[in-house]
């Protein structure tokens, strides 16, 4: 790749979401907007190596794409003269000829980006389609990159993206920022997609394609952009805080052999101080907005308790219990309950925790979850019920797929 082509690639990465978002609002079609933006990008690849990169490459791409949009519309109108289209053509011509006013431009770019993100994360799409389309149109990734990241074939992702764009067009999803009652549920869908992308990257194991862990970075970038676009939404800051703090541990969560290292055993000097600082700042932004913390902010607050402690023993466990109590009320789930029990056992002793864990034993969704008997074994051992503890460890070992983990469980059983 020549230097200019690599530079144009970088420009695309920086500008594509804004260009596609702006175009989508003009032509009212995400798929068409992407095609037009791609055409403009191809034009840049042809012209910029000779002319050099323009001073404002984003504006160049936008103007080029708008001209193409007008051309296309004219062609279509010649074929089928329809009434309503004329107004749109005038609107387009006006947009293309008018130099954008600096004062208006910031708001407009913000709305362009937001309406694009709300469209690519629209609930009419499946979650996997939402993730692929968001990475493609908002994150500037190629279908090949997305395919590598999600461990599926490029054809699968390409098809998913094409279908998603068609679904949006057929459902006539408007390119706009939802308001009123609509904002909260639509925002929840956006946050869900961002966190799904982040977790996909976070769950990558050593030796896998590096595109996978890079998803964490992509998700963080989308989250950070969203936090600036919707500064008044506490849960956006909550999610950003959660992702920043989780990402801060990425250098410590895998051992030399690629095996996972649990939170309590991690070398905290390998935690990224800059990301922790950013996470704590984002959490403060969420808290300052007032009101009760949402599920993301609560999880971030729990992560922050760990991030602030230099060692597990210095952790504010009573606060973690209180935060889990709040989380269990807001978003109850057996996994949250189990985590709450672990926090209770450290803050208040094994007896209180054992009661919580015993209540989970008949929970069907945890039936195959090896951490339940593993946690219960630890609590039983601490209250002196060793035989039962050994039985639980054996059960945990039978449930885990990980050989290293099974070895550890056997060691624990032997030491009882």
């Amino acid at each position, binding site marked *: 790749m020549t*230097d200019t082509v*690599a*530079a144009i*690639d*970088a*420009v695309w*990465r*920086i500008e594509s979401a804004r260009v596609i978002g702006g175009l989508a609002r003009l032509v009212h079609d995400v798929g068409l907007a992407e095609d037009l933006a791609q055409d403009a990008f191809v034009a840049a690849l042809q012209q910029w190596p000779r002319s050099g990169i323009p001073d404002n490459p984003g504006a160049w791409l936008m103007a080029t794409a708008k001209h193409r949009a007008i051309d296309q519309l004219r062609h279509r109108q010649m074929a089928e003269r329809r009434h309503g289209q004329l107004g749109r053509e005038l609107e387009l011509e006006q947009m293309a000829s008018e130099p954008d006013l600096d004062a208006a431009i910031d708001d407009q770019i913000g709305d362009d980006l937001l309406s694009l993100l709300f469209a690519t994360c629209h609930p009419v799409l499946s979650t996997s389609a939402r993730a692929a389309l968001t990475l493609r149109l908002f994150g500037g990734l190629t279908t090949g990159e997305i395919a590598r990241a999600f461990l599926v074939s490029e054809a699968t992702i390409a098809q998913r993206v094409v279908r998603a764009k068609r679904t949006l067009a057929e459902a006539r999803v408007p390119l706009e920022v939802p308001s009123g009652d609509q904002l909260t549920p639509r925002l929840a869908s956006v946050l869900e997609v961002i966190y799904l992308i982040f977790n996909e*990257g976070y769950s990558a194991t050593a030796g896998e394609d*590096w595109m996978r*862990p*890079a998803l*964490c*970075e992509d998700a*963080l*970038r*989308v*989250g*950070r*952009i969203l936090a*600036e*676009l919707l500064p008044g939404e506490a849960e956006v800051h909550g999610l950003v805080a959660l992702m920043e703090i989780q990402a801060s541990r*990425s*250098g410590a969560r895998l051992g*030399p052999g690629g095996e996972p290292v649990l939170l309590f055993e991690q070398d905290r000097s*390998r935690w990224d101080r*800059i990301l922790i600082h*950013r996470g704590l700042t984002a959490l403060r932004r969420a808290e300052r907005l007032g009101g009760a913390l949402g599920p993301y902010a609560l999880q971030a607050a729990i992560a922050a308790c760990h991030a602030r402690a230099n060692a597990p023993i210095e952790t504010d466990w009573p606060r973690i219990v209180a935060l889990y109590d709040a989380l269990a009320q807001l978003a109850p789930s057996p996994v949250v309950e189990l985590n709450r029990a672990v926090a209770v056992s450290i803050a208040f002793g094994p007896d209180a925790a054992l009661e919580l864990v015993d209540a989970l034993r008949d929970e069907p969704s945890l039936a195959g979850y090896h951490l339940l008997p593993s946690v219960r074994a630890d609590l039983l051992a601490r209250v002196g019920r060793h035989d039962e503890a050994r039985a639980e460890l054996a059960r945990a070992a039978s449930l885990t797929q990980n050989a290293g983990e099974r070895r550890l469980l056997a060691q624990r059983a032997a030491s009882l």
Partner: protein
Amino acid sequence: MGDHTLMRFMMIMKPNISEENWAPSAEAIAAMSAYNEELTKAGVLLALDGLQPTAMGARVSFASGQPTVTDGPFTEAQEMIGGYWLIQAKSRQEAVQWASRCPAADGDVIEVRQVYEMSDFADET
């Protein structure tokens, strides 16, 4: 150094100004604030700082195993650092793109340097 999951770059500003007129004009400050905001809104800025004039600083140099302290100010142009940005980018080219957009003055230099990540060392252990 191969592909990275996380690439960070430090953009080190070496301003073309003398120690005496270290403080930038109100216009320059406004332009720089807008630039910093652009980096923030794009989700790439991790941290930034501006540095006080060298008169407030010192240099600690080493020879024969001994540190020698020299108080500021220092006068060599192009040796002074005015501040830095730490950004996250997908490629060196992207970092260079961001640096190119800085509303810098004639003669200013921004050095773009990639930061070592944990993973750079993990392979050697």
